[in-house]
């Protein structure tokens, strides 16, 4: 390298030389064999087909979700009408509330069933107690230490 040459000059020369070499490479790239060009074309078409497929797949769940949204909106509108048909924000609130309604019904149902089951158990236990108390006392009971203890205890 010539030491007398200044840095900006050198950079400009490098850039010009590089640009010329780049132009040579571009020219060479334009002379690709036919089979390579064909394979590149096939690759491009495959990529485009893939892009189209991805777009289709991305669109599909949206389409499936649309009817549900419509249903909720309808329900919300009906409830909004019952509530006096307030503004847009209010309609949204009703829509959300309407969406929660089935869940609320389910929870209430489960609590009711549980309460019913508990009452059944208490009723069954009471029946057994009634039967035991109404029955004659067997003589063996007096020899049972537990029963003797029960008799000694003062009545509550």
């Amino acid at each position, binding site marked *: 390298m010539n030491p007398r040459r200044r840095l900006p000059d050198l950079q400009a020369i*490098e850039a010009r030389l590089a640009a*010329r070499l780049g132009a040579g490479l571009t020219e*060479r790239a334009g002379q690709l064999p036919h089979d*390579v060009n064909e394979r590149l074309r096939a*690759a491009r078409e495959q*990529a485009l087909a893939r892009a189209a497929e991805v777009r289709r797949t991305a669109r599909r769940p949206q389409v499936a979700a649309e009817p549900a949204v419509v249903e909720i909106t309808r329900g919300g509108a009906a409830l909004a009408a019952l509530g006096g048909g307030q503004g847009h924000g209010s309609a949204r609130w009703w829509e959300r509330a309407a969406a929660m309604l089935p869940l609320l019904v389910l929870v209430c149902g489960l609590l009711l069933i549980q309460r019913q089951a508990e009452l059944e158990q208490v009723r069954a236990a009471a029946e057994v107690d009634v039967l035991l108390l109404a029955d004659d006392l067997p003589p063996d009971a007096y020899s049972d230490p537990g029963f003797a203890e029960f008799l000694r205890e003062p009545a509550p």
Partner: protein
Amino acid sequence: MASDKELSDFLKSVEKRAFKRTVYAVRSDDAALDIVQEAMIKLAEKYADRPSAEWPLLFQRILSNATMDWFRREKVRNAVIQNLSDFEGADDDGDFDLLEMLNTLDGSLGTESALDTVSRTQILTAVESEVAELPARQREAFLLRYWEEFDVAEAAAVMGCSEGSVKTHCSRAVHALAKALRARGITL
């Protein structure tokens, strides 16, 4: 969202250079075609919905990554880099005059009438072969800057290095190319 036509036009505009660039790196037409195809498909799958202005950088990045993946898969990357770095040792430019080389280039590649088609093809083949012989990073920087016409910041983003490194790689690449071509007796 960009249309299919835009994507097609973009891929068409970059595919040849992408192929050549990959061939310089992997030295196999078949492997290069596979890598370019992989990069195209990845761009189409993941980034087709991005603005088309972002595609050039994204594509070059994907292509670089795909090429590196190919080297990893082939388990020859280390060997290749070692071979190429042998060539990199030639930093003793001495009094080699770049301007002299540029002047000879002016009288050849720049003017069609100075050379016949056969010698021009030979020169271009030599240029191509010397580009392929450059160390990998120098070649990548050179091609991104002067072939893909990226600016320094964009080339640095694609290569994942600093702008200073890109400038250094480019400068070394140009000097190495000029020197190698002159050593071949090419007056271009």
